[in-house]
């Protein structure tokens, strides 16, 4: 019964190669950080602390997955944090102010996020506006709309939200996983499938490798570019819903700077910012590395919150330097 495994390894369009090194390093770093935590602090090395990483960062996992799609095409999406805040706000307003059922509000929020992303993608594709600028405008717009809706925090007190947020999936060993984290993992699985096994996914890699070539090969390069921003918009909206589940509120100051965390997670996960190379598994590990640092600092207790930022900065530096090293070696070999 080796066929299933063989099929799986063969299904991936390449064998283990140097370009997988960054992901492995991220994995190693995550394990190391987790090990250090486990040795230093009692109660750290438990399955639940590990699962909490998924629970506390479910929204970031989803947002970073969307960001990975965009970065794989060589673009960037600065609007994700604002869209997260806007989606959370829309959830809060929809359920609390308009008294709509959650199952009506949620699809609407997802559609709004997707359309918003697609709109930015259209600007980038049709009018050749740099992604950095177009999504910056999107960032301002989403945050501005969010502020216009309400400057106050709106608490969500809705049956559906409470049911999803306050219950969780029991797992063996007395551990549990929140439904938000489950959703994040489902998104991860679906996104991985899309990237590796569908034409849409491969087109994304092709566009990231060379947009001009992709176009001349007859691939729908323009459509692909719009797609990735729509996907990122969808992921941000879903991330916003998960965030509102996590905090049970909508607030215009939510998720300020989350785009930085998402980009950091993608980079730490080994995806190259110029596009065309990277894996979602790396992104997931990148989020977990950020999560484990925050957890360690919270276990430490005495350390102030700004150390988190400095630590992420140091980590970014380490990873970027590492990527450079691998990158240079690869280039000299192929030359």
């Amino acid at each position, binding site marked *: 019964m080796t066929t299933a495994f063989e099929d799986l390894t063969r299904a*991936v*369009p390449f064998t283990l190669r140097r370009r997988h090194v960054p992901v492995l390093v991220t994995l190693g770093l995550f394990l190391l950080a987790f090990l250090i935590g486990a040795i230093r602090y009692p109660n750290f090395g438990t399955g639940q602390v590990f699962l909490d990483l998924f629970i506390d960062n479910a929204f970031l996992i989803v947002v970073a997955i969307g960001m990975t799609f965009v970065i794989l095409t060589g673009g960037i999406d600065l609007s994700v944090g604002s869209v997260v805040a806007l989606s959370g706000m829309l959830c809060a307003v929809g359920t609390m102010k308009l008294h709509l059922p959650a199952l009506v509000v949620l699809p609407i929020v997802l559609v709004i996020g997707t359309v918003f992303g697609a709109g930015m993608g259209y600007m980038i594709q049709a009018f050749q506006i740099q992604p950095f600028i177009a999504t910056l405008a999107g960032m301002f717009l989403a945050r501005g709309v969010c502020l216009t809706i309400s400057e106050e925090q709106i608490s969500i007190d809705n049956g559906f939200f409470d049911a999803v947020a306050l219950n969780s999936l029991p797992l063996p060993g007395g551990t549990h996983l929140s439904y938000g984290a489950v959703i994040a993992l489902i998104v991860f699985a679906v996104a991985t499938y899309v990237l590796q096994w569908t*034409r849409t996914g*491969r087109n994304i890699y092709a566009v990231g490798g060379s947009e001009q070539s992709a176009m001349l090969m007859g691939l*729908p390069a323009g459509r692909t570019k719009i797609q990735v921003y729509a996907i990122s918009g969808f992921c941000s909206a879903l991330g916003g819903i998960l965030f509102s589940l996590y905090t049970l509120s909508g607030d215009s100051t939510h998720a300020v700077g989350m785009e930085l965390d998402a980009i950091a997670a993608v980079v730490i996960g080994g995806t190259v910012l110029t596009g065309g190379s990277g894996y979602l598994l790396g992104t997931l590990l990148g989020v977990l590395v950020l999560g484990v640092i925050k957890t360690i600092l919270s276990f430490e207790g005495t350390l102030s919150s700004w150390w988190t930022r400095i630590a992420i900065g140091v980590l970014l530096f380490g990873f970027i330097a590492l990527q450079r090293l691998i990158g240079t070696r690869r280039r000299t070999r192929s030359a």
Partner: protein
Amino acid sequence: MTVPVLEMEGISKGFPGVQALEDVAFRLFPGEIHALMGENGAGKSTLIKVLTGVYEADAGLVAIDDVGTLIRGPLHAQRLGISTVYQEVNLCPNLSVAENIFIGREPRRLGRIDWAQVRTRSAELLARLDLDLDVTAQLGSYSLAVQQLVAIVRAIDLDAKVLILDEPTSSLDRGEVAQLFTVMRRLRADGVAILFVSHFLEQIYEVCDRVTVLRNGRLVGEYPLAELSRFELVSKMTGQELAALEEIDEAAPRVERGEKLFALEGVGRTGAIDPVDLDLHRGEVVGLAGLLGSGRSELARLIFGADTADSGRITAEGEAVALRNPRAAIERGVAFCPEDRKGDGLVMDLTVEENIILALQAARGWTRPLSQRKREELVEQYIRALRIHPPHPQALVKNLSGGNQQKVLLARWLITQPKLLILDEPTRGIDIGAKTEIQKLVVSLAGDGMAVLFISAELEEVLRISHKIEVLRDRQLVAELDNDGSLTPERILQTIANGAAEK
């Protein structure tokens, strides 16, 4: 004759400031290899881009199998059976070889891409071309020539009725070209119509049946190649007699060799070129001959310090020097016009004037700018001397034709009054008029005492203007031949072949 598989009529296409095509007609029959010829700016690329749907023609009709069709884009063109392989490899270097062959039409099973089949089928297709590659390796890890062949494999598998090969041979060596021609003939026998663009006349006559000639965006005519002499073909392309080319043949000068300027002893770089001994004298043109990948450009780059040598030593005028970077070489009076004008040579967003003074200004540093008057004077002088067109110093260099861009590059270095001028393929991809001018210029520069290192893929050209020819093969310098008048391209080719036998 049968019905043309492709017929274009009255095609016009204009861009701001340029009428690229005007009332051009073109026919392609099944089972023929048809050459499209013309100098730069004749409209070949535009015609091909109209044909592949990259551009939309302003006027005109396209009929495929006698049915009027509007080609909406590259994808649509492929669906209509028109596949294209471009001069620059238009594949994705970050994807695997197999994926590059199949992307966009991967075999699928239950809605997901069947990677196993992608790999086995691409290996089969490559085998048809006698290519043995690791189909799972990244395309970028292979040489340009291999990438080009992969592009052709991709195009062939699209079940093309019409296959467009836009200068596919410019980065292939002889063996690879022969391989390509075999495949082209096989496809012709299968009834595929092939449109072949190449700058090499020999290749056109070797493999093509008919030719369509364009000049200045207009159709000159369509001829069977068997009834058209080379001389006639070139005159139709240029619209003038070949006097210019012959003139330089007569002028092939035998200049006094001056004092020794540079001496290379065992200079080499692992993976690029084996250690080389070479002397460069004032007033002497040294030609580097060899096939693609033989180490021609690599040797030039070492002398200029563009790459660092890891063995040997260089003496300049009797003094040992280390040319570790271009700056060091420039200070020693070395100038280098690289092969890739756009990528390594010119700054496209800057003006002609700025590009011309760049090397001189770089040598002076940013704190000592050239005065406005000096700038204008120098630039004016070289625009006139090299006949750069348009003669506007403030024109953006990206708006110039290939030949004029090459002249701008030459002017940039001549202005620094170098002792040694290294030219890597200075006449590649430019029209015959500019080509002749550049060849003459090289000869006259050497006459004035400059040392010149001249690299060209065209043996005839190397032979015409060099005094001494260094033959490279497989990253080794295999022979030094004196151009004493008895030297022929055939003998150089033999030398390359003998190098193989010795090994």
